[in-house]
């Protein structure tokens, strides 16, 4: 058996296994999809760490002030992390009782969050990045989960705000898929990222187990793994929607993903004790599967690139040999014999069907109203290519020790 077959068999088996596992998890928990009813309105503090966000901060603050949660039961704390633009001025222009604006020297996102944690008066505390906006009922939908005293954090569902470029449109679908995954991980007790935009925490967790790690590239992964280490619960409200601005072009997207993936690798290494049956599905399936998928996608990426390059070279050499008289080659003669239906093709079709099923379910779960468009096909066919690239670059960056930047502060 040649390498193509072995690789495709392994990839399709792994893909099928995880997809079926996730779909079965969803099925057995379908009654738990609704948010718990909100009985009281505990006090919540929302921190907005901002660095050079003068363009978006007003919209972010406005969306928070519009939350349909009693005004005296939540406060907004904006921390300008040493911006060089008018972020502080814009944020200070809001004259409302439950908003406070502070300015400090630049120290990175985690330091801004820690700064604000000391000022919070809420029983629950959350953050909202200054490039994200919440929907009106997001907080109400989230807070109900804290009725269970074991719940230490509740994550929202993230969506891309007004996607314009093709990369943003692909990210939009990626985020919809992320919504599905986060809910499944919540059912499995395996959420390992509590996203910066609007995850709400029980404040007592920070008091007991320490604040954000300012030296961490992805503090939202570190805090989630810390909660998991202490075997508390991280929940997800699938319809508490938060919109975030996704990178429009390739370069900022690559920068963002490098930070995420290197941060993930660093944190998982620091919390390697989680790879244990003691941590249930997280330790025995979800975290190992993340690394297996990364490994497989990198191999597939390079093998595909190798095949593509060698085929292209062969094709060009062929064309040179016939003086580029190509019009004779494109004769359309349909013969069903040449429809590829070998085992690999059948498994690829199966994987595509499962992929479409998952996307449709994710779309329904996240209450995404826009219709399925070409970008969905792009996502299904090409997203794995970008995914492989991020993982490869992150792995290389980790191996070579190259610095990754967030804001202007290197970590």
């Amino acid at each position, binding site marked *: 058996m*040649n390498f193509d077959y072995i690789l495709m068999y392994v990839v399709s088996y792994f893909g099928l*296994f995880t997809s*079926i596992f996730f779909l*079965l998890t969803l099925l057995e928990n379908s009654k738990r999809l609704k948010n718990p009813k909100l009985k009281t309105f505990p006090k919540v503090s929302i921190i907005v760490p901002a660095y050079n966000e003068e363009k978006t901060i007003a919209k972010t603050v406005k969306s928070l002030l519009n939350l349909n949660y009693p005004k005296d039961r939540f406060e907004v704390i904006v921390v300008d992390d040493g911006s060089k633009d008018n972020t502080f001025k814009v944020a200070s222009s809001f004259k409302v009782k439950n908003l406070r604006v502070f300015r400090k020297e630049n120290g990175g996102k985690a330091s801004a969050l820690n700064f604000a944690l000391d000022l919070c008066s809420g029983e629950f505390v959350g953050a909202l990045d200054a490039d994200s906006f919440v929907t009106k009922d997001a907080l109400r939908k989230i807070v109900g989960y804290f009725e269970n005293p074991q719940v230490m954090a509740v994550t929202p569902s993230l969506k891309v705000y007004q996607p314009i470029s093709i990369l943003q449109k692909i990210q939009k679908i990626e985020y919809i898929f992320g919504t599905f995954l986060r809910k499944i991980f919540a059912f499995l*007790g395996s959420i390992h990222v509590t996203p910066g935009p609007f995850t709400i925490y029980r404040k007592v967790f920070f008091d007991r187990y320490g604040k954000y790690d300012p030296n961490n590239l992805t503090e939202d992964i570190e805090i989630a793994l810390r909660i998991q280490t202490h075997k508390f619960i991280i929940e997800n409200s699938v319809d508490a929607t938060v919109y975030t601005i996704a990178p429009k072009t390739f370069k900022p997207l690559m920068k963002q993903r490098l930070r995420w993936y290197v941060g993930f690798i660093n944190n998982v290494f620091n919390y390697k004790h989680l790879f244990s049956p003691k*941590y249930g599905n997280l330790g025995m399936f979800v975290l190992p599967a993340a690394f297996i998928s990364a490994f497989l996608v990198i191999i597939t990426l390079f093998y595909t690139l190798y095949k593509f390059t060698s085929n292209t070279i062969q094709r060009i050499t062929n064309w040179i*040999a016939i003086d580029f*008289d190509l019009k*004779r080659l494109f004769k359309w003669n349909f013969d069903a*014999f040449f429809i590829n239906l070998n085992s690999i093709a059948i498994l690829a079709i199966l994987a595509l069907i499962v992929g479409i099923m998952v996307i449709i379910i994710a779309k329904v779960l996240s209450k995404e109203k826009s219709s399925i468009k070409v970008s969905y096909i792009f996502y299904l066919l090409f997203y794995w290519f970008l995914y492989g690239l991020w993982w490869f670059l992150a792995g290389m960056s980790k191996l070579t020790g190259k610095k990754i930047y967030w804001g202007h502060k290197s970590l």
Partner: protein
Amino acid sequence: MQRREISKTKYLAVFATTTLIFVIGVFIGHEVTIMKLNTIDDLEQNMKVDTMAIELQYLLIAEDPCSYINATPLTEELYGIGTKLDYMENQLGESNPSVLRIKEYYSLLEVRHWLYMKKVNKECNKNSALILYFYSNEGDCPTCKEQGFVLNYLHTKYPSMNIYSFDTNIKDIALDTIKQDYGIKKETPILIINDKVYVGFMSSKDIEKLT
């Protein structure tokens, strides 16, 4: 603190379902492949009958058989089988036993067709270009793929050009005889154009000049 439990039954159920779907997928693919190989087998049998028929036609028409000869459908039939065989070889690999068996038979059909065309050329004063092409796909012939492509192109450009491709690694008495007659050694690609042997890659222009 919450106890983290793993449901072994669930993992087993997922494992069983995945394996079942996987095996069904592989099985369907395998069956389709066998069906396709059988199709080529059938086509070869049809070709055998058609070749015999045209040979007999030649013998039976005592008076001026040349005016009745039309070998084009048979040539196209041969070419059609060759294309399908190429496709299956790409899919299953050149060392697949079924592919090798079909290819061996195909080579014999080619030799028979070539002999017939030679006879027609000679006895009917025709001038159809006859090209024998020996290749190897055991990794020792870097230009064979390119040469195959060029010959395919030439057949599309000149449907009357008869090209017969032979895997030099196939052990067969008829092929060995041809190789011996033309003094062919291991080196590939080799083209025999109008009874002259050419070793090494030839572009479409080079071949066009000789035919």
